C-alpha cells in the first residue's frame, strides 16, 4: 500500500507586499507515514511559508496539495478548518495557548470541536496526553501561569489530542532552553516511532534537525537537499 501521507506538487507562492516576490519556487515533495521530517534553511528561505502552505492555513498558492490521499487544494475554508481539526496538529514557536483556560481545557478544545468522543472521555484522553508529556500536575492551572517549557508541552499535548495524521511544528524549540529542547525532541521521536504519526518541523536548530529522520533544506524558495 502507498505509504505516502503528504504529497505536494509543484507548489508556487508569491508575496505581493511590499513588492512581488517569488517565495516558493515549484516545490514538489512527498512525506511518508511515521516520518519525522525537519525543514531547515536560513531566514527568508521560505521554509515557514512552505509549512503554512502544507498546513492548509495558507490557501494563496499555486500547485496542489494532498494529505492522507485527499486533495486539499481549492477546498472551502470551512472544509479545510474541519480537515485541520481532524488530521493536523499544530505546535508553534510561541506556544499559543489560550491563557484564560486551564491546561487541560486547552488540550480538550480541539477534541470538543471534533466531537469524536464524549466530554468525559475527552477529559480522560487529554489527561493521558498531559501525562505522556509529564505536565499532568499542571492540568488545572490556567495556561497563562505555566512556565515556557510547560506551556510548550501542553501545546504538544493539544496537537496530539485528535490523533492527527500530521503534526506541523513551527520552531517548536525556538524558545526553549537546552534541557526542555531535549525533552521535546524525545517526545517527538516517541510520537513518530511508537505512535507512527508524521511530524514536519521547521527549525533553525541543527541539533534538533540531527535527531530527525530526514532533513529538507531550503534556500531561496527551492529545496537544496532532500
Amino acid at each position: 500500500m502507498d505509504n505516502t501521507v503528504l504529497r505536494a506538487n509543484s507548489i508556487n507562492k508569491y508575496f505581493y507586499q511590499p513588492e512581488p516576490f517569488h517565495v516558493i519556487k515549484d516545490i514538489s515533495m512527498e512525506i511518508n507515514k511515521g516520518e519525522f521530517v525537519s525543514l531547515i534553511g536560513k531566514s527568508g528561505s521560505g521554509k515557514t511559508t512552505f509549512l503554512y502552505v502544507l498546513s492548509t492555513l495558507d490557501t494563496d498558492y499555486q500547485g496542489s496539495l494532498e494529505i492522507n490521499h485527499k486533495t486539499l487544494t481549492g477546498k472551502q475554508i470551512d472544509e479545510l478548518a474541519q480537515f485541520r481539526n481532524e488530521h493536523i496538529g499544530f505546535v508553534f514557536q510561541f506556544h499559543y495557548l489560550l491563557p484564560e483556560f486551564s491546561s487541560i481545557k486547552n488540550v480538550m478544545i480541539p477534541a470538543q470541536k471534533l466531537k469524536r468522543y464524549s466530554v468525559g472521555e475527552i477529559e480522560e484522553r487529554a489527561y493521558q496526553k498531559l501525562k505522556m508529556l509529564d505536565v499532568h500536575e499542571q492540568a488545572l492551572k490556567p495556561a497563562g501561569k505555566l512556565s515556557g517549557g510547560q506551556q510548550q508541552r501542553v501545546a504538544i499535548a493539544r496537537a496530539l489530542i485528535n490523533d492527527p495524521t500530521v503534526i506541523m511544528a513551527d520552531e517548536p524549540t525556538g524558545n526553549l532552553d537546552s534541557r526542555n529542547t531535549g525533552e521535546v525532541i524525545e517526545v517527538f521521536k516517541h510520537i513518530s516511532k511508537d505512535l507512527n504519526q508524521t511530524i514536519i518541523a521547521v527549525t533553525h536548530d541543527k541539533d534538533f534537525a540531527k535527531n530527525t529522520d530526514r532533513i529538507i533544506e531550503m534556500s531561496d524558495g527551492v529545496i537544496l537537499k532532500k
Partner: protein
Amino acid sequence: MKLKINTEIALTHITSRMKQSIVAALGVTFGISMYIFVNSILSGTNDYFEKTTLSNIPHVRIYNDLNSDSVSVSQEYFGDQVVSAVSSQKPLSTTNNIRNPWYILNLVKRDPEVTAATAQVTSNVFYNNGSVQINGSAFGVNILEEDKMFDLKSMMQAGRIEDLLKINNGILIGSGIASKLNIKLNDNLYVASAQGVTKLMKVVGIFQTSISNVDNTKSYASISNVQQLLMEDGSYITDIKFNLKDKDLAPEYVNKYIHLTGYSAEAWSSANQTVGAGMVIRNFIAQAMLITILVVAGFGIYNILNMTIHEKMKDIAILKANGFAGNDITNIFITEATLIGLSGGVAGVILGYVISYLAAQIPIKLAGLNTLPIDFTPSNYILGFLFGTVTTLLAGYLPAKKAATVDPVQIIRG
C-alpha cells in the same frame, strides 16, 4: 452541565474579563431602564391627560348644529346663472333641538358597543345666593348614565348623585360655584335662566373635576328642570351623548349617526385635537430620545467587543488553526454579545421598575395629581427588553463578523 464548546469559550471570555463585561452590560442596563422609565412616565402622562379630557367629554356627541349657510331659492334653482343681490342675509329663526330624541337615544342604547348614553339639555343660567350672582350652565342629564361616562361619584366632594333623582328640585354644583356663593350641602340657591325663569333649587351634591373652568360654572339637574328653565316642553333635547367600549371607534360611530339621523356628531378626538397632537409630539420626542439612548448603549457594546476581539486576535488565530471555522468564531462572539445583552437586559428591566416605582412616590400637587403619573403596564418592559437585546445583537454582529475573517497565518507569523 454540557455546553457546546463555542458557548463554553464565550463564557470563559466573559468571566475572565468580568469588569469589562459588567461595564458593557451596564450600558445595556442603563439604556433599557431609561427606556422603560421614560416610556412609563410618558404613557402615564398621556393616560392622565386622556382621562382628564374624557372626564367631561363623551366619546360621541350628537347635536343639531345651527346651519345658516342657506342658499337663496333662486340660486338653488338656477345655480351660477343668476347673481343673488340680497345683502346682509339673516339666518332663519330655528331651534337647535333634536327631533324625536328618545327614539335616537333608544337606538343608541341598543348598540352593544355603547356603555352609557344620555340625552342632554343645556341652559345658560345665573346662580344667585343673596346678592352674589355668577353665571354658568345647567346640564340636564340622566345622572346615572352621566356617572357611568365620567365617574362623577369619584369627583363628589359632598352629597350623593342619587339624591338628584329623589329630590325634585335638586342640583349638583361645581366646587367653584359652591365656594364663590358660600354654599354648603343642602343649602338652597336660585337658578335663573335667560328666558326669565327662576327656580329655587336645593344643593344635593358638590363635585370637583379639577378643571376650574368646569367647577366654576357647571351644574347638573334633572332633564325636566332644565327644560323648565328654558320654558320648553318635555321633548326638547339638544344633545345625545354616549360612550363606547372602545373609544377609538368613535369616528366610525360619528359617521354612522350623521348618516342615520342627519344631525351633526362629534368624536372626542376631534373635539380635542390639541390633546391628541400633544400626545403625538410627546411620543415623538420620547422615541427620538430613547433611540439615542439605545444607540449609545449599542456603541458601548460594539466598542467593548471590538476591543475584546482585538485583544483576542491570537486566540482566534489559534482556534482557527485548530479547526474552528469562521462561523464558530462568529458564534463565540455573538454568544458573548447575547449573554451581555441578556444579563444587561434583565438588570435593566429590574432597574427600570425600581426607578419607575421610586418616581411614582414623588409627591407633586398639580391639577388633581398627587404623584407623578406613571404607567406600569408590562408592554413597556417587554419592548424595552426587546429593543435592548436587539441593539446588543446588532452591535455584536459586526465585530463578530470581523473576527471570522481574521487570517491566522498573518497573526501567527506576526
